[in-house]
């Protein structure tokens, strides 16, 4: 009987604690989350209706610690590359090649736009549950957290996992047609975001002779193809001979990623707190 009484008292305390969690703590966390995410979304400089005029331009000088055969200066304007200057020193004859974007062209970095959209969706979800809203069940909070975390995970994944492309896909992408003078046919260029870095890869190709004894195996999709990868383009069979990758850290992307991680952890902690209680309520003495 005493055990039962104790457990009843315990139960009352737990219930009280849970109510506090639902009514006070959840909103505190949501508030915090919203602040962080707003901060994060500010990083994605958004040319919206509120801030008229073009977004500010940032220049990034791309390089690698090793050889400096490729140098690039990319100009980022919001989520689009507005200018690009690529200098390539051909390894064979030390000839210097220079390409730039055509004046009228911009190349959109879809990863940034997607991440920004996912964040704003997360903010929208949170904004609909401000202090005036009364959470009634834990399940409700869990559901909301799931939805927010889904958006945040996607936002972060868009930045951390660039699309894996096959070589023909890179060759077919519009990026290769953006340059003036046009890229020679034995060069492929790809730009993507990996984590907090803006990356530029240049692939040098050479044609495989039809009589070649090499076993032709088209390479699958990859973020970064290695030399020796083969593919078929038009009627030609091509092989990657050299790969150059240069990159540069974008500071505000770094911030955004940190914010994402922090908010994801906040969400998870809230979920864990709630589910401790949920599993307690659902269990019945037998």
């Amino acid at each position: 009987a005493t055990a039962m009484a104790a457990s009843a008292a315990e139960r009352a305390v737990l219930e009280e604690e849970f109510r506090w969690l639902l009514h006070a703590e959840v909103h505190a966390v949501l508030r915090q989350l919203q602040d962080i995410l707003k901060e994060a979304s500010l990083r994605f400089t958004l040319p919206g209706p509120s801030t008229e005029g073009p977004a500010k331009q940032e220049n990034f000088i791309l390089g690698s610690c090793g050889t400096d055969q490729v140098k690039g200066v990319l100009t980022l304007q919001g989520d689009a590359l507005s200018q690009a200057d690529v200098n390539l020193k051909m390894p064979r004859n030390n000839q210097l090649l220079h390409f730039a974007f055509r004046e009228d062209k911009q190349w959109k970095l879809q990863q940034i736009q997607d991440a920004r959209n996912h964040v704003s969706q997360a903010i929208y979800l949170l904004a609909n549950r401000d202090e005036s809203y009364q959470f009634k069940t834990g399940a409700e909070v869990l559901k909301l957290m799931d939805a927010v975390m889904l958006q945040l995970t996607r936002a972060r994944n868009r930045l951390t996992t660039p699309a894996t492309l096959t070589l023909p896909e890179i060759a077919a992408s519009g990026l290769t047609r953006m340059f003036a003078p046009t890229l020679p046919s034995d060069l492929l260029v790809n730009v993507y975001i990996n984590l907090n870095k803006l990356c530029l890869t240049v692939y040098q190709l050479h044609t495989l002779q039809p009589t070649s004894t090499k076993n032709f195996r088209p390479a699958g999709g990859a973020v970064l193809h290695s030399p020796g990868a083969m593919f078929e383009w038009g009627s030609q069979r091509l092989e990657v001979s050299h790969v150059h990758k240069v990159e540069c850290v974008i500071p505000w992307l770094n911030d955004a990623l940190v914010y994402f991680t922090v908010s994801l952890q906040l969400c998870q902690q809230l979920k864990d707190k709630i589910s401790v209680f949920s599993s307690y309520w659902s269990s019945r003495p037998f």
Partner: protein
Amino acid sequence: MAGNSLVLPIVLWGRKAPTHCISSILLTDDGGTIVTGCHDGQICLWDLSEELEVNPRALLFGHTAAITCLSKACASGDKQYTVSASANGEMCLWDVNDGRCIEFTKLACTHTGIQFYQFSVGNQREGRLLCHGHYPEILVVDATSLEVLYSLVSKISPDWISSMSIIRSHRTQEDTVVALSVTGILKVWIVTSEISGLQDTEPIFEEESKPIYCQNCQSLSFCAFTQRSLLVVCSKYWRVFDAGDYSLLCSGPSEDGQTWTGGDFVSADKVIIWTENGQSYIYKLPASCLPASDSFRSDVGKAVENLIPPVQHSLLDQKDRELVICPPVTRFFYGCKEYLHKLLIQGDSSGRLSIWNIADIADKQEANEGLKTTTCISLQDAFDKLKPCPAGIIDQLSVIPNSNEPLKVTASVYIPAHGRLVCGREDGSIIIVPATQTAIVQLLQGEHMLRRGWPPHRTLRGHRNKVTCLLYPHQVSARYDQRYLISGGVDFSVIIWDIFSGEMKHIFCVHGGEITQLLVPPENCSARVQHCVCSVASDHSVGLLSLREKKCIMLASRHLFPIQVIKWRPSDDYLVVGCTDGSVCVWQMDTGALDRCAMGITAVEILNACDEAVPAAVDSLSHPAVNLKQAMTRRSLAALKNMAHHKLQTLATNLLASEASDKGNLPKYSHNSLMVQAIKTNLTDPDIHVLFFDVEALIIQLLTEEASRPNTALISPENLQKASGSSDKGGSFLTGKRAAVLFQQVKETIKENIKEHLLDEEEDEEEVMRQRREESDPEYRASKSKPLTLLEYNLTMDTAKLFMSCLHAWGLNEVLDEVCLDRLGMLKPHCTVSFGLLSRGGHMSLMLPGYNQAAGKLLQAKAEAGRKGPATESVGKGTYTVSRAVTTQHLLSIISLANTLMSMTNATFIGDHMKKGPTRPPRPGTPDLSKARDSPPASSNIVQGQIKQAAAPVSARSAADHSGSASASPALRTCFLVNEGWSQLAAMHCVMLPDLLGLGKFRPPLLEMLARRWQDRCLEVREAAQALLLAELRRIEQAGRKETIDTWAPYLPQYMDHVISPGVTAEAMQTMAAAPDASGPEAKVQEEEHDLVDDDITTGCLSSVPQMKKMSTSYEERRKQATAIVLLGVIGAEFGAEIEPPKLLTRPRSSSQIPEGFGLTSGGSNYSLARHTCKALTFLLLQPPSPKLPPHSTIRRTAIDLIGRGFTVWEPYMDVSAVLMGLLELCADAEKQLANITMGLPLSPAADSARSARHALSLIATARPPAFITTIAKEVHRHTALAANTQSQQSIHTTTLARAKGEILRVIEILIEKMPTDVVDLLVEVMDIIMYCLEGSLVKKKGLQECFPAICRFYMVSYYERSHRIAVGARHGSVALYDIRTGKCQTIHGHKGPITAVSFAPDGRYLATYSNTDSHISFWQMNTSLLGSIGMLNSAPQLRCIKTYQVPPVQPASPGSHNALRLARLIWTSNRNVILMAHDGKEHRFMV
């Protein structure tokens, strides 16, 4: 249809409805079905009646993430297709009528909205799906194949599209797509039919891009009434725009700061807008928004804020709404032409649907009065309404005192080797129970209902709270002790149990959270890890618990996020933990050290690398649907695919083992016919149990058990045959022999299969390895046979009993129902059984309980059920009125099983079950009373008395015709009656259902599904499919068949004409077909080929197939081609003659009047169908084997079969010689393979083709004897000529002929037996063939009489042993003389008409010939001297006609009869005297 196997699920839902948190809603065009998608990935189909009553019908499984959107996917008509998309990029195309998944695909991007759009190109209409989502464009997807065709992209500030609408303007005849991006920019694309014409992948750019400053847009809708305005609903306001120039017409704010989630036009002047918390408001638009009004557009450009339209109505919410956990989904639907309701449908997180009928109030002008919901129902409501409650798997064992809710089952695992189901419950106890018996209790009514504690079970107690997961490691890997069962609970503990003794072996308490998953490490881990299980807990920790050492050898904890996936890298001793946030931790198993943590792309690469290393050990934990999908996919791919093969493997090992030890005492093998899979739609739900019945496996098991039964029957089969007269299928072979025969057959087949398995690279490695182990490890085998210490029972018969009882259409034929109950031992179901339908790729549709309750009639039905007992009308026959696909599968199953049971001796379910129970009074409940009205009074005794004996009077009526049986012993009669019962059961389902159910209700089987099983691997299923297909084709009559032809003819692939042109030899054709340039259609056939062979494999290799035509990559499309070939082949073969012009109705024999085909148009092109079908069939037969078209595939076999069946139809279009050679090639080795084909066991593919080919040859030969004989004779001549010319080089062709000698002789023998007239007409050719086929030396030794007795029956054939000569009298009056020694032939002409008889004199010096036509008898002197014989070696012998006598002609007894062949014969009485004996006994004597 999952793979080739015929697998039927039955669901035990339990009382709690599955969680269905609705995320999207759709109402089908006909207004008959509401489709809802939920956050857990299931889709629910709800029937909506005219009176707006709603009843849930089925739940569709297959998506592994939340459903994001639903859309219709076909224009209209009788098809109701719906497409669904989920958050992880999956798209599925469903047939709403039966819940089949038609097509599915997965893209990298998430769709949030799909709209159906129909392009018209000429008079062709093609469906397109316009999709938008988390990507900055609109994808245009083909509505049947789900391929992305092209995209609509933006040039100016591209961004995600948040909503979209298609505007059809009748004025400009231009269709435009209007979309709003997330940043509030309106985009317009023009999509016209020209665009759909170019099938490029070129994107289309927008026509117009205009910022309209709408933030957080929720919906965009076009006014279908005026076609002039657009409604845009944003979260805080809604706006109406002019659809012409997109200028703002009016704007409204949100009510009380609520958030809008969508809206639509209700009529030309009203809009309905709904909020996030489920309120809806109807607004009347101001005049400036109405094109009909004068002041239209009067406010454009002015400030619109002061123009707030008034609320007209608000739709009230449910007052007593359950707590919702997320915003409800609302959609507005208005009917098209035939359907005029205007419905607002809302679905919420508790699986509740609320419907408001807007049409009711649209005209009333009362303001601000809330409109009540018209209908409101949730899944749980539907479950609660049912009486009896939906059954759970162990409800009878889980009743708690003082509560009417049974204990929930929270985890379960099925042990197929023992047929036991282990259930963990919410109170912490674990129950082990025989699966079939507990299912029988739950589903069927019978004496077991009254028994306490039935079925026998064992309870394990140890957990202090809910059991969360169960694992039986021995089932995954044999390295574990088969006694061990592992359970994990909410109380943080993992317990090892001994299932044989029931004791608790050990408790692990290492985790700090409830256990969520238990896993088995892969095979090649270190020895220490091999004896561990891996446990995952909700505190984000992973443990390796050693069962041998009884301790935790590693604990990987401190992960920040829940664990999503565990992978293994045994070679590096790594355990890889993937968390939900995408991070990966790599742990060293031996030391427990954290090797590294990775994020992003590295993490993905690490996980992928594990997949490469250990493909089998993938296990995802996050989502219950994922687990289900994986389980299903794995089942369908690995388990279901090779079920029969695997079955045979196990059988073989057991048989071989038994041979070594003790014959007749077979060890138990594992039972694969029943699988129990527990599924959860949501992690918090109790388990739902799905029983998967594999019909093929069940048939095999039944037949094997029958064969291995030591004392099969009390009666000898001869008696049985006499008694029944008709049951040739029954025990037509001796029982003792039967087992041996079966063993032999199984072993043969297995040898083949094993060979194939080892050779075939594509085969699952895992499978092969397991087989190898099973073969090699005797201990493993022995251990398998050890039963649990529970009551023994016959699992196979129990499974069959359960299955047949559920399938039978009860209540249609009372007499038959009696027979089923009393004689066959079947039981009536308590209520309608929830069946399911499996589609490709692990997609599944499960009927919800009460699916057939007509909406709105639930209450009456309930009242009725209370009075009359559960066996009311609704029970039983339900499944045949559900959908055509369901009918097909169920009919196939029940007929094939009934036939199997019929072929067994005394296969009744009575007595097998509950042998040890005390005899009980009749079944409880009232069904007996209701039955007793019509049945003879004796029936009440039956139930009480000894069932077997009493079966006779019931069936007195049916047995009366077979008076012979009365004299037989009672046991014999029982057996006969049982068999007859099965045959009645099969007959009723095969042909009588349409009449009994009424055409309005009956859903006939799908022809195409039957056609695909025309040559099913399992003979019983094949026979059932053929019988059903023919019955159905007959039922639909000529008109229906014409319609079928019209439907399928367009799918028939068109083959190049030159492939099979007359005169082209088989070699030429084969080389031509093999040549690489013969591209298009062949490639297609190869693909489709593949489909029929194995549905599931195809899906994997689809992408690698080069794209021939736009449609060709679509799975469904290619399968349709294959189906078309089969279906048209069947119709052509079976009904070909009938659909032609009437003058050809009788199938004439002369070749000038061959049926010309089955085209429908009376014009000149009416042979094309027959020709094309024939081309396709011959192509399939003759195409040389390739990886994609294996030599012995289902479709090839089907083609063979159909060529044989419809030869008369195809003959004019095919190269007969090539076809015959192709068939002979296939059955050349038939003797070896087909030694013992008797039982319905699956054959090895090669043997099966041989069997079909042999059958086809016989059919061709008997249908067209002259064609067969002349063709073969031609080939023989060609061959001999070839052999004479080039002696060394043997072409494929000739070796075929040489190898098939035995087969040719067999056919000739059949011909002589059945068509002697035709043989006599071409006797010389026949003799040519025989001479070629018979071994000369053998004939010399044994004589013709012994070598080929059949031919010697003819009077026109005579054989003289000493000189080894054969004389054959031909039709045209000549006599052919063969010399066996040289193989040469000489012809003499002597008569003017057909020769009636020939005979050699006893000393061989004379040959007498007689022709009835010219009534002459001639004597020829043979050269028998030694010199002459030598001379004959090189030159023709001298033959002289020495005498001719005139004889009075013999009159034939009746013209045209076979007697014409036996008019007269010649009998030599001595060397010089001969008697001409006529058929009427008249004799004429002659002397040389």
